[in-house]
């Protein structure tokens, strides 16, 4: 890696003692000696292991659940169903007033994706829990499922989630989050060329080497200590307190050393049910996702569809951009309404375009709920935007890098969501890339600056 100190030297002080220094990481000696304590390295005598009975169907009504055989299985301490969970219907963003509550800790009457948690089995060993889980009998009536976002949005599509009442998240702005800036139709009318293209992604797994999980120990004083690899300690504690209807003061969360997160450990999935198990049995409980659960049950990065329509002039200026983004939330909201909204704040990308129209939808389908991942709400949008930029440049016969210089945002430029650009550095990144990759651009672009014109 090289630090190029020549850029922005005029606005940067480099006289610091500790900042900017390659200090060794204080946690690395623990990592290389195997002494770092991850949550699963905690082991308690008498600890129970929790295994989930999961739905084999994408969408089904639950007619009945019979746990009697499982309860009799040797080593089983307790079997939990929806009725054991004090506040079973929840949503994590309720803490910041983003509702409605739309998800069940354990399925109650219905499952909405394949792999959904239905019954929790707690037993002395993982093996006993697994064997007992296989003895739980659930009678399902399979319902039609919908997987395709376009299908889901059509009238008459199977309804994924009754708590929403329709297959999209209803924002205060309506069926999508909107950004309107300038007059996009007037922009298209004046453009020399129009290009409309559609981009698609598929769900992506965070795949941290350490799977999601927690170990809970009753502290003996009515409190519970939860060793967890959550990415957000109080967010998880406070949601747990709501779900279990237990004062937060009874909960003690310990974490902060995590075997990779990438956004995959912000869902408050394992802690509430494990703490409930510890409370009802009085014993320590371990609930750790298997690799298979991590791959297919834990929420992935959402699949997205992005449709971009641009109006561009022969001289390289983009004069209008319309973006319609669809985020596949799967069966439940989790963080997706927030992610789709983040997309609305991100488009039209780091370019100054006078006429912009953005609609972002959060769509429900019968698949594993998606959630945050590294680049949440932005990564797939950037893929779409930057491939579109390449196509536009070729459409007007311009070098793709020079084309970006023409449209790059600079300090003071007004963004579509009506914030003035501050601290821009796109131009300088492109200048340095031009040098490093030996991709020459015209001198006038190398002379540009992100600083406001005339500043």
């Amino acid at each position, binding site marked *: 890696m090289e630090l190029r100190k020549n850029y922005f030297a005029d606005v940067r002080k480099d006289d610091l003692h500790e900042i900017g220094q390659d200090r060794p990481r204080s946690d*690395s000696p623990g*990592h*290389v000696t*195997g*002494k770092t304590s*991850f949550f*699963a390295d905690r082991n308690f005598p008498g600890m129970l292991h929790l295994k989930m009975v999961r739905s084999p169907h994408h969408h089904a009504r639950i007619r009945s659940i019979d746990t009697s055989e499982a309860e009799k299985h040797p080593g089983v301490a307790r079997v939990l169903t929806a009725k054991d969970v004090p506040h079973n219907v929840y949503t994590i963003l309720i803490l910041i007033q983003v509702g409605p509550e739309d998800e069940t800790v354990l399925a109650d009457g219905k499952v909405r994706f394949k792999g959904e948690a239905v019954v929790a089995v707690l037993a002395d060993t993982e093996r006993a829990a697994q064997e007992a889980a296989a003895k739980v009998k659930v009678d399902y009536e399979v319902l039609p499922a919908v997987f395709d976002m376009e299908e889901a949005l059509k009238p008459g599509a199977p309804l994924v989630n009754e708590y929403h009442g329709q297959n999209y998240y209803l924002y205060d702005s309506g069926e999508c989050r909107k950004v309107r800036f300038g007059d996009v139709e007037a922009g298209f009318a004046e453009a020399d060329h129009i290009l409309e293209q559609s981009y698609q992604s598929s769900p992506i797994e965070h795949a941290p080497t350490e799977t999601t999980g927690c170990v809970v120990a009753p502290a003996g004083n009515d409190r519970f200590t939860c060793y967890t690899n959550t990415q957000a300690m109080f967010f998880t504690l406070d949601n747990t307190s709501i779900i279990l209807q237990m004062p937060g003061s009874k909960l003690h969360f310990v974490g902060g050393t995590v*075997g990779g997160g*990438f956004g995959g450990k912000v869902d408050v999935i394992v802690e509430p049910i494990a703490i409930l198990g510890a409370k009802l049995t009085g014993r320590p409980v371990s609930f750790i996702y298997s690799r298979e659960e991590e791959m297919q049950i834990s929420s992935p990065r959402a699949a997205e569809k992005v449709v971009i329509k641009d109006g561009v002039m022969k001289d390289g200026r983009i004069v209008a951009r319309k973006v319609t983004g669809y985020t596949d939330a799967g069966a439940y909201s989790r963080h997706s309404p927030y992610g789709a909204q983040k997309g609305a704040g991100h488009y039209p990308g780091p370019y100054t375009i006078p006429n912009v129209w953005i609609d972002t939808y959060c769509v429900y389908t019968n698949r594993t709920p998606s959630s945050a991942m590294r680049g949440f709400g932005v990564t797939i949008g950037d893929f779409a935007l930057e491939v579109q930029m390449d196509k536009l440049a070729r459409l007007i016969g311009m070098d793709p890098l020079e084309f970006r210089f023409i449209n790059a945002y600079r300090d003071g430029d007004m963004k579509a969501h009506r914030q003035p650009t501050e601290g821009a550095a796109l131009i300088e990144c492109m200048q340095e890339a031009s040098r490093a990759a030996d991709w020459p651009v015209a001198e006038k672009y190398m002379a540009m600056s992100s600083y406001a014109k005339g500043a």
Partner: protein
Amino acid sequence: MAKVPVQFTLNGSETAEFIDSGSTLLHALRDKIGDTSPKGGCHQGTCGACSVIIDGELRLSCLTLAENCNGTAITTTSGLSEGGVLHPLQRAFLDAFASQCGFCTPGMIMAAKVLLDHTPNPSRDEVVQALSGNICRCTGYEPIIQAVLLAARANSQNAA
């Protein structure tokens, strides 16, 4: 469930324990004996985080039955440093900033140790081969490859 005795040398110390018949070595080490340096990243033999060295060979402890290890000599990452002095591989992982979350690190170090024990001056390709059974999601692998090459260089300088 029937308990069976297991006995082996772990990082130079005689170790014995009663375990459930059919337990994996990973389970025995972590949950019974208390050596948590091998990590369980998949329990299905696809990530390498649980790697240990049994009689000089690299093994996935999640796929090894503990009772089959009777009489063997087992090395784990927690046993590499001697008298508080880091093993050259551990030192190299620090110097090359080759750990981020650190979850893959013990397994990586085991794989690298077996390589260097057999091939003190490996080529880059040999390092890549040796690490190819270990997943890392944080580093992009390059710093780990560099750490192993660094340790090999340090070894050969000490030997010279």
